[in-house]
């Protein structure tokens, strides 16, 4: 068993500009506490996060990847997040089928006003990844 108490998971988060990124910003300006384990990348819409951007950090050894978007119905490009959702379903199938733990990839709908939800999401995700232990890809070199 890995020593999960001293293990600090690294999360890469792709957050849509209009909702989740603004929500994360709100969490910051409201001085909400959440673990510092996340590196945030801003995208215009959750649907612009091609699977390659999720797979690259996972295979390079990041412990988790978060995709954040507007709630269904609220996407600023109308239907982007509905497609994100389907792409996520496919990705989960593929990760599972090819022997990866699909629980390392999260999709969350978090609006611009849900700073608390963003902070809670990161807190939960860190806890869950600590339980899972480090991503085995951290030592896989022959890929």
């Amino acid at each position, binding site marked *: 068993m890995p020593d999960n108490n001293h293990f600090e998971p690294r999360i890469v988060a792709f957050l849509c500009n209009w909702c989740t990124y603004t929500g994360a910003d709100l969490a910051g300006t409201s001085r909400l506490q959440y673990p510092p384990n996340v590196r945030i990348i801003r995208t215009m819409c959750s649907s612009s996060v*091609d*699977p*390659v951007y999720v*797979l*690259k950090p996972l*295979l*390079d*050894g990041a412990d988790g990847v978060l995709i954040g*978007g507007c*709630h*269904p*119905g609220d996407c600023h490009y109308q*239907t982007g*997040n*509905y*497609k994100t*959702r*389907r*792409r*996520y*379903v*496919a*990705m989960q*199938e*593929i990760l599972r*089928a*090819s*022997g*990866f733990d699909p629980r390392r990839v999260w*999709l*969350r*709908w978090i609006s611009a006003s849900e700073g608390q*939800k963003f902070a*809670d*999401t990161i807190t*939960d995700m860190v806890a869950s990844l600590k339980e899972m232990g480090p991503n*085995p890809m*951290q*030592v*896989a*070199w*022959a*890929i």
Partner: protein
Amino acid sequence: MIGLFPLKDGDALTAVRSFLQTLLSNDVVDALYVPLESAEGQILPALVTDPARLESANPLAPVMLVNGARAISALTQKKAPARLGAVLRSCETRALVELVKLQQASLEDVLLIGVDCPGTYELADYQAIQKEALFALEDALQAAGRGEQLEGPDLRLACQMCTQPIPEQADIHLHIYGEGLAGGLFVEIGEELAEKLGLTPVLDYQVKKRQQVIEQVLGDKQKLREAEISALQARLGSNGSIAQMFAACLRCHNCMTACPICYCKTCLFRTAAFDHPPEHYLNAAYRKGAIRLLGDTLLFHLTRMNHMAASCVSCGMCSSACPVDIPVGLIFSTIGTQVQAAFGYTPGKDLQEPLPLVTFQANEWNEIGEVK
């Protein structure tokens, strides 16, 4: 209706050739996509406008250099420039249907001539059969019609486990399974076209016989498919095993080039997107202790899978193109089948059914994205 085209000299190939000639000479189509046999005995897909060239047509040779869907995509794009006939196998028509949905091909003004597919050999095996005269192709075809296979090399794995060898989309459908080809070439065809070609309906067509042969062939293939897929699933289930399976990958991208579904002209993996400054590789090596160079091999395969597995038609062209014998097709078919099942989608079946990653419903997977 079912029409009968008489065999000349009891030879199926000659009959098919003259049947195709009638399509050109009766002005049903202006050009025909069909494999021709070169003087050296190579079977090369071609676009034919001169009926005389069809003397060397050979759509029955059990070998497939490329999946013809790619060629029809190049030939039609948004719309065929002339009335085009295309002689295709089932996995080619299915891939074509996917390409039409991906807006990379059009079926407008295209007459699909489907042929029952008894399966194809790897090119090297096909050449060995020819060179060593292991059996006559005509005999192999007659045997295939009865649901049998002659002693010799195995078919390509994709064909051994192909559960859809009967083309479903065809406007004209040449039967191989069933009565065999002794009595002539049975052609499933619309009445108007039949009249144009002077085909009369066969009244005593042995539908039962055909169904029996197909059932038996499909049953065997289905069994093998299930066995191959569950063996692979068991292997893939253990952590890191997919990395091992692709460990010998040369990153040649042949699998992608041969795949009829992968059409992107600007594929990310053909750009400099993953060329990093030197320090980047060193940092990655510090992080992991060692990294493979060049890397991103698994990234390529998993990304490709995310992009196209929903449309994978299990044609196995990727495996045939792989120089290091990685069972790419089996891996993609297996995982592809799982992705397709998640969306209840069957690639190549229905032009009207939208691609699963392009469409959506507002009310579905509502639990995703919410806190559990």
